[in-house]
Structures are given as structure tokens and as C-alpha cells.
């Protein structure tokens, strides 16, 4: 089953996404708890956890389904399913029974059910970070949106990256994001560039120091800068700050 068919088959489920890098000493571990047990302790349904792994060009590389028993949990290493890449994982947990039919009377069940999970990013040097799921796949599309984040000068942070994920899926048109990234100090534009296009359901990691050659001098001068990301099809990006020890800190902007 491909992603388009999966979306069509499970229209009542939002398919959560998250950045899923593997290879070059990195791995991503998806951690999921069958939370339906919290809401339906008597019913305690099993879920089918559907995972679709895509590479950074938005090409589907694996589609797996794990049956998670009621109250069960799983930790899945993405390197079993993805080759070395900066890809994306899309996840939906689908109960094996009809919870709308079986739910207690008066319980208000969402029209579109969500899937929460965590991802633990690790590298071979023992450094780690983690985050909850990020935005669900959007089939409607988007207009141009802007997001702001600050970056700062620190004696311990070597590099600043942005992780741009294009999770706007369509089976009738190709939605390629063309982000424009600006560096600002208090609303004065210091530098602006067009980042590499991001394929539909793809990921682009933008090294700000590579794209803005004078970034270190700008940080020395102003200590704190604002980065503005403007694009269609890109939802609030992740930032990645790389510490000189090899540790890193990755998180969503908004």
C-alpha cells in the first residue's frame, strides 16, 4: 500500500510526521505507547501502527505495520527500514475495533483521530535528543507562510541548521516547496537566500553557515539574530544547534 492509498483508506486519521535521519553514525528510534488504553480502559483496543518511511526526496522506502496490544509500547529503530538519509517518517495508529461504535455514550470522539509518538535521535558518539511527533500530513496545501526563530552566538555552539519538511501531499499535483530564508537583526535584512527546493514529502537540511558565509561575523557583531523562513508547503521547521562536543539540540520553531 502506498502513502496515497493509505491516506485515502484512513481518512479519519491524521498521519503524524517527523524528521527521521539515519546513517553516518545516526539513528532515529520511534517510541510509541498505545494510548487508546488511557481513554478506553475497559475496551483496551489493540492498534495497528502504520509507519511509512520516505527519503529526503519524498520517495517511499518502506511501509510497515506493527500490531501493538492494548496498553503496549514499542521502540522501533528506523535504520532497519531506511538507508543513510535525512528522511521523514509518517505514522498513524489505527485501532483494530470501531471505537466510535463502542465508545461510551456521550463521549465526544474527534472526527480526525491523531497519533502521538516520540522520536529519539542518536549518534554514534552517544549524543542524543528527542521530540514528540510533528505536523500531520496536509492534503489541502498551503499558502506562503513565514516563521521566525532566533539563533545566538555561543562559545559552545558550532553550527546552526534548519530542517525543512514538506508534508503537503497530493496525488494530483507535485507540490515543491521553494523556501526563502532571511537573516535579520531587529527587522533589518542582513542576508537573504533561496534555499534548495524541497520535494513533496521530502526533507531539506539547510546549514546556515554554508549558505550565509558571513554568519559567524554577523553573530559576533549582533550576538542574536532572527531567521525568517518563508515558503509554501513547509510547516514550522525544526532547528538543529550543533554543540562543539558533538551533542546537538533539535526542536520545532512554533
Amino acid at each position, binding site marked *: 500500500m502506498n502513502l496515497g492509498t493509505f491516506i485515502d483508506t484512513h481518512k479519519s486519521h491524521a498521519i503524524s510526521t517527523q524528521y527521521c535521519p539515519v546513517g553516518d553514525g545516526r539513528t532515529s528510534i520511534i517510541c510509541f505507547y498505545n494510548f487508546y488504553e488511557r481513554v478506553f480502559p475497559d475496551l483496551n483496543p489493540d492498534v495497528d501502527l502504520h509507519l511509512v518511511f520516505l527519503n529526503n526526496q519524498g520517495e517511499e522506502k518502506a511501509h510497515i505495520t506493527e500490531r501493538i496490544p492494548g496498553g503496549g509500547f514499542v521502540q522501533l529503530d528506523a535504520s532497519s527500514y531506511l538507508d543513510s538519509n535525512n528522511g521523514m517518517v509518517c505514522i498513524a495508529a489505527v485501532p483494530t475495533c470501531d471505537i466510535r461504535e463502542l465508545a461510551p455514550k456521550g463521549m465526544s470522539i474527534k472526527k480526525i483521530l491523531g497519533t*502521538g509518538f516520540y522520536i529519539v535521535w542518536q549518534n554514534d558518539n552517544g549524543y542524543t535528543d528527542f521530540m514528540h511527533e510533528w505536523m500531520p500530513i496536509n492534503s489541502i496545501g498551503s499558502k506562503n507562510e513565514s516563521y521566525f526563530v*532566533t539563533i545566538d552566538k555561543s562559545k559552545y555552539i558550532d553550527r546552526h541548521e534548519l530542517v525543512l519538511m514538506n508534508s503537503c501531499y497530493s496525488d494530483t499535483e507535485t507540490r515543491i516547496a521553494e523556501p526563502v530564508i532571511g537573516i535579520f537583526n531587529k527587522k533589518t535584512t542582513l542576508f537573504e537566500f533561496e534555499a534548495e527546493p524541497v520535494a513533496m514529502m521530502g526533507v531539506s537540511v539547510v546549514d546556515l553557515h554554508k549558505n550565509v558565509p558571513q554568519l559567524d561575523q554577523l553573530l559576533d557583531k549582533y550576538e542574536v539574530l532572527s531567521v525568517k523562513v518563508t515558503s509554501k508547503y513547509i510547516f514550522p521547521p525544526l532547528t538543529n544547534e550543533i554543540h562543539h562536543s558533538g551533542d546537538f539540540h533539535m*526542536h520545532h520553531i512554533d
Partner: protein
Amino acid sequence: MLPKGMWKAWEPRVILPTFKGVDNIVDFSVQPSLNKAYQGIIYTLAYPLYNVFKKRSSIGIAFKHYQNILFRSKIVFRIILLSRSGEYIHQWNVPGKYSPGDYFRIDLQQLSAGSEYTIGDNLIIVVASRGRNDSWMSSPGSLSIKYVSRNSIAGLRTGLFSRPLNEGGKGHFGFTGVNPKIMFKKELEPSILLINHSSDPSYSRSVTPTIRLYRRPGEYIEKKLGEIPPNGARETRILQVFPEVSDYLAETNMTGCTIAQVKGATLSSYHLFRNKNDDVVAMDHSRPSHTNIIGK
């Protein structure tokens, strides 16, 4: 209890831990969402009065909100410092007023330098003077807090909110915090940090959560965590509360899941990894799972 009038009911805020021995750095970028009406103009204008009608808010709060919309008021921020046992220590005003595209970054050590107050294992409450036009209990953007040392970096981003929390006579039905990321790989040690706070500064209730360590559905050990005073916090290392973890999780390759619970109150919950040097190397807030299922 905190001093009376620490914040107004309409002021979005967030409570976060700080840690000793690291640079605790806070920053915020005001997103364009501050003055937008993503959910439509009619919704944006009607929602404050609707909340008055539903008795979730007051005429004064609705009036304040319309004032913000009309005058596109800029945001002013404050940082309140508490001890981990919930006592008020001091507060600072963040210099400046902020509109979309503006930002601030504050090193809390530098903020407190020159004062008699030092930042160690504490709590801070960051308060904003207003929320978004179309989601007026929420901030236009996420506050970032970073913990940076010579050896490590960790942090998280989370929004500021002004919704009622642990307030009023009824009490909350309870808190459940699930952490399926329990693992002991690469010399990492998991822990959880729980904060017992309220939208009411006069909140005075202590709580004593329990925690279960699961290795499979239905197979768990349960322990009591220590008491958490009002507006206080407690970090619990999994190895400390479950010294038998090496034996207990041996058959699941040292992986497990914890569920922390308390009745009658809700808590802020953070998950951490520390390394063998005790540095905080990863951290994030936990997520309520029922919101994936219950609601509109």
C-alpha cells in the same frame, strides 16, 4: 502560595525548570500569528464573548482582548523566579515591547548577575501580557529554553497559555504522563520532572504522584514519588526510584515505559536524559494522549 496578583487571568504563561551548572538561555520570536485571524474574523471577534457566555471567562477579560485586537498591542514579558519547592524569589521585566518579527534572548545567569539571586535548580514562570487574536489564551510562538554547558546542549520549545489549570473548587480529574522512551543505551539515564502548578497564584495543594515502570502490558512495578509542593517541582531519576531496573528490564533489552499518575490535579511533565556526567543531554515536555481522541 505565590504573592497575590502575580499575573492576570488573560496573560499567557509557562513554567519551566532551570538547572545549576549550565547556561539557562531563554528566547522568544513573535510569530505573525499574533495579529492574524486564521480561524476567520467572525470566530476571532465572537470567541471572547462566547467564553463569557459559557462562564469560562469574564467581561473584563473579553474587554482586554478586544483592546488588544483594536490597538494591535505589543507584548511585554516578565520572568518570575521560584525555588523548586514553589517559593517566590524574584521577578524581572524583559526589556522592550514585541510585535511580529521581534525577538528576545536572555541568558538567565546574566539577568540575575549583579542581584542577590542566582539561577540554579529552580523554576521560572515566563508571563506574556497578551495572547493571539484568534486563540487568545495562547502565545504567538513558542518560548525556547536551552541548557548549554561546555559538554552538552539540551532544551525545548513550548507555548505560553492562560487557560484555567488546577483552579477552583472542583479540582482536576487527574494527570497521567506516559514515557515510552525508557532506555539505558549509550550510558544514558532517563528521568522525569513533574511540576505542580496552577493558573491561580494562591494555589496551595501538594500532590504525591505514583509511577509505574512497565516492561510489557500488565507487567509493572509501582512506586510512590515524593510529595510535590504547590508551584514546586520534583525530578525523579528512574534508576533511583527503581534500583531493580537492570534486572527487571533485562528481558526487554533495557527498554520500558513509565506511567506517572496523580488524582485531583494536573501536572506539567518533562522527560529528560542525563549522561554519565549527569549533564542534561535531552529534554522535552510530555504530551497528553487523550487529546488525540477526545474533542471536536
